[in-house]
């Protein structure tokens, strides 16, 4: 079966809780940088939950917007990498080859969604915190760019299990860490090429929109707007 991974983010369900952020940090060996580095804009988290204010008291509102890598179909970051460190893989994901990266940071510069983070240092995990590091993926060294991969190691694991059992991968079997944990179920992940998948159904919702659609990046992350009022 053809595979086209996609993520749906339902803003009507997202509460801004940040569980996805910590799930991602835990899954992907993401370093902690400390207060001073965050101030310089060097937070390493691969998904952020942006919070927007609107209006004034007493009508003020806040809306949360979880922003992982959009895994653009026509990714502006890919075309500018001089060494093909960032490329399109067989599932249509925008992947990174860390040991090819030479640290030009052109990709981050060209990403309209600001989701790429750069290793300004070799980050250290004070012992024994390194015991937790996932053996499924490396830690990245200084001078290397990184970003959300849709938890490619979890996708691989699910694919391998399916292959071992001689079957196709099931809907819902491969999910990134953020989707797995999201308490209100705001995040959904799956194969849009499979017309019976939950995500294929979800993406028919008239509330759908994509971030900065006018840029023509064709993101694989699709948002569903917040709703107003009771009933549907």
């Amino acid at each position, binding site marked *: 079966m053809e595979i086209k991974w996609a993520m749906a983010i339902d803003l009507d369900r997202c509460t801004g*809780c940040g569980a996805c952020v*910590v799930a991602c940090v835990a899954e992907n060996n993401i370093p902690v940088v400390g207060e001073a580095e965050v101030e310089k804009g060097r937070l390493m988290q691969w998904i952020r939950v942006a*919070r927007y204010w609107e209006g004034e008291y007493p009508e003020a509102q806040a809306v949360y917007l979880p922003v992982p890598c959009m895994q653009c179909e026509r990714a502006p970051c890919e075309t500018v990498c001089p060494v093909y460190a960032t490329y399109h893989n067989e599932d249509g994901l925008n992947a990174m080859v860390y040991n090819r990266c030479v640290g030009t940071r052109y990709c981050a510069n060209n990403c309209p969604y600001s989701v790429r983070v750069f290793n300004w240092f070799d980050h250290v995990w004070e012992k024994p915190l390194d*015991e937790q590091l996932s053996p499924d993926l490396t830690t990245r060294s200084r001078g290397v760019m990184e970003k959300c991969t849709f938890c490619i190691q979890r996708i691989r694991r699910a694919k391998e299990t399916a292959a071992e059992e001689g079957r196709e991968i099931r809907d819902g079997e491969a999910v990134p860490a953020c989707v797995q944990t999201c308490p209100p179920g705001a995040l959904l992940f799956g194969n849009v090429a499979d017309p019976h998948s939950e995500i294929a159904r979800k993406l028919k919702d008239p509330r759908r929109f994509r971030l900065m659609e006018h840029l023509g990046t064709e993101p694989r992350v699709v948002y569903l707007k917040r709703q107003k009022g009771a009933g549907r």
Partner: protein
Amino acid sequence: MLHRRQFLKLGGATAFATLFGGCDKMQRTLIPFVIPPENTTLGEALWYASVCGQCPAGCGIVVRVSEGRAKKIEGNPRHPVNRGRLCARGQAALQALYHPERLSRPMKLSGTRGSGTYAPISWEEALSLLMVPLKKVQAEAPASLLMLTEPMRGHAGLVAGRFMKAFGSKHRVAWDPFGADAMLSANAAIHGIRDLPEHDLANARYLLSFSGDFLETGISPVHYARAYGRMRGDRETIRGKFVHFGPRLSMTAAAADLFLPCTPGTEGIVALGIAHVMVRDRLTAASAVAGRLADDLSAYPPEAVERLTGVHAHDIAAVAEEFARNQPGIAIPGTGAATGPDGAFHCAGVALLNALAGNAGKPGGVSFPNRALAFARYGSEAALLAPAPESGYAAMRDAIDKMRGGAFRIAILSGATNPAFTLPPSLKFSEALSKVPFIAAFASFLDETTSQADLVLPVPTALEAWGDDLAPVGHSGAVTLCQPVVVPFHDTRSMPDVLIAAAGELGGKPAKALPWGSFKECLDKAYGGPGGQMEIALQRGGFFGESSSQRSGARTGTVAFPKGTERPIDGDPKAFPLALHLYPSVTLYDGRGANLPWLQEMPDPVTTAVWRNWVEVNPKTAAGLGLSEGDGVTVTSPSGKITAHVTFNPGIAPDVAAMPLGQGHTRYGKTANGRGENPFALLPAGETYALQATRVSLTKTKLPTRLVRFAHPEGQWKISNLM
């Protein structure tokens, strides 16, 4: 296909076994969550089920273990409380397990009391240091033993309770800074049941929240967040509507369709205003209740309520009508309403709406599952296993008085609720504690409380110990089991294990009361032991069969009308113009998470601040005070004074200053220390427990630090594109 599999051989401290004689067997069988294929290769990960210990909600977890090390924590998909989901704090528990500052072996005080200098000792020495005074006190004055813990559930509670009883001391105090005292007494008054209800959000059409924090901290945040998601989006034609009243636009409030700010400490009055309209306009299902309350409610017409609360009369009337017409609907009170000086009144006002709506016991309403039923076989001891989620404030005050008076000769401390940090300093807890001649602390970390101990006994984390648990809500009668999912990382002993061994040493009544060789044996006896039911249960993470607790509709016949008592909050409004609103931190909870770097670096949902605490004010209020975003201020209350950075919250009432609890540690390790000051220090030592208890003033102060926030690097979006 299920079959057993011998997996990790757990080592651990054998010294203890030498002293107390085989109280712990070296070999144990762990039961993996997903049974691995026969050809499991080394390096492949297995999942084991256990329980999250990061807050009292009791979510079920599964832990990914690879080569004996925990790699990731996820929610247990079978667990009724959280169904596979987990909050940020729960996932960060991994960092507590492998924390560089975790206590790895027993220690005795080597410097002066409270200096925090300790010398490592063996378990033999530690236990003899504990047993000598214990034996002496038991012979001479058993009532002078104090046990001060966080609320303990399951058989750990049974062991502690029985130990104290058999020892001959009734001074067992459990402290929880976010205890649900007010909600319990309100439910007793309105529903006739002194317990927490189950709110069936998933099936509700309308949700009224009164300073609710059910999506972030509250009683069971993952359980209710999941139910909230289902309320919004799981039904084909119905999307539940959510209206929030409260003084601050919190993370939970931000999720509401309609946020109606009210004056702090008036949540219950708003609720009574809504009740007034429901009764006046004959909108209630429970007409008998309505008839009886009509007279009392006549004092709360919307116009009068508007004057007291700042919520417009037409909003109150409109919400009342919508609530009544969109049943089943639920009214839910939050920590902000419950921890006002008159919290029980506010919670009762809210509970009254549920009674008037007649939703008790119905799908999409409130119900009171009988928690104690799971442990009914213990008779009167069942309360030890399923205690009411109270703060224990009164008992705590009493214990402080007695400590100061020299009534105690030994204090045994345990738990994450850290009273030296979470009690108002004016209660002088630490000073009183120092009057106790011998203090032993069971702990994973030194903190403001445990660093006062003479003897520190390191305990395993929830990922390394045997245990059982019954969650406060969402449990459906299910008992959660925990097992050591990894090889214990340090030379630790659980508190029940030490108490059981100590009881054996003491002989007599204590030995009879705790007749087991180890805590594991106690659990084996209780749950059918190896080879039986327990094995399957351990594999799944607990007993999640058909609900064993009956859902009881609450009895609404004797609804007592909530009476507000005049308990004005501290501080003259002239000198202290802003009401202080304290709330549990979304990331650090009551402060226990402050030593975990993942939580410190997770941007706060509302302010996006990291690594430091702040005081939230309305931008207009700040302008009036000449304050800009990020400015340092001194926050002064009649009881104390701290500094913090100002940050703007455009959705906070103009006469309020809000601060998250959890930062301000001084003795909780290098990640937690020096990240601002502790807002608990602003609280008066009141008769009843209250967090919303004082007014404050803000004065601009130069601070050497800066508040770092992480908002949206992509630039500001037009919000209308998102809604």
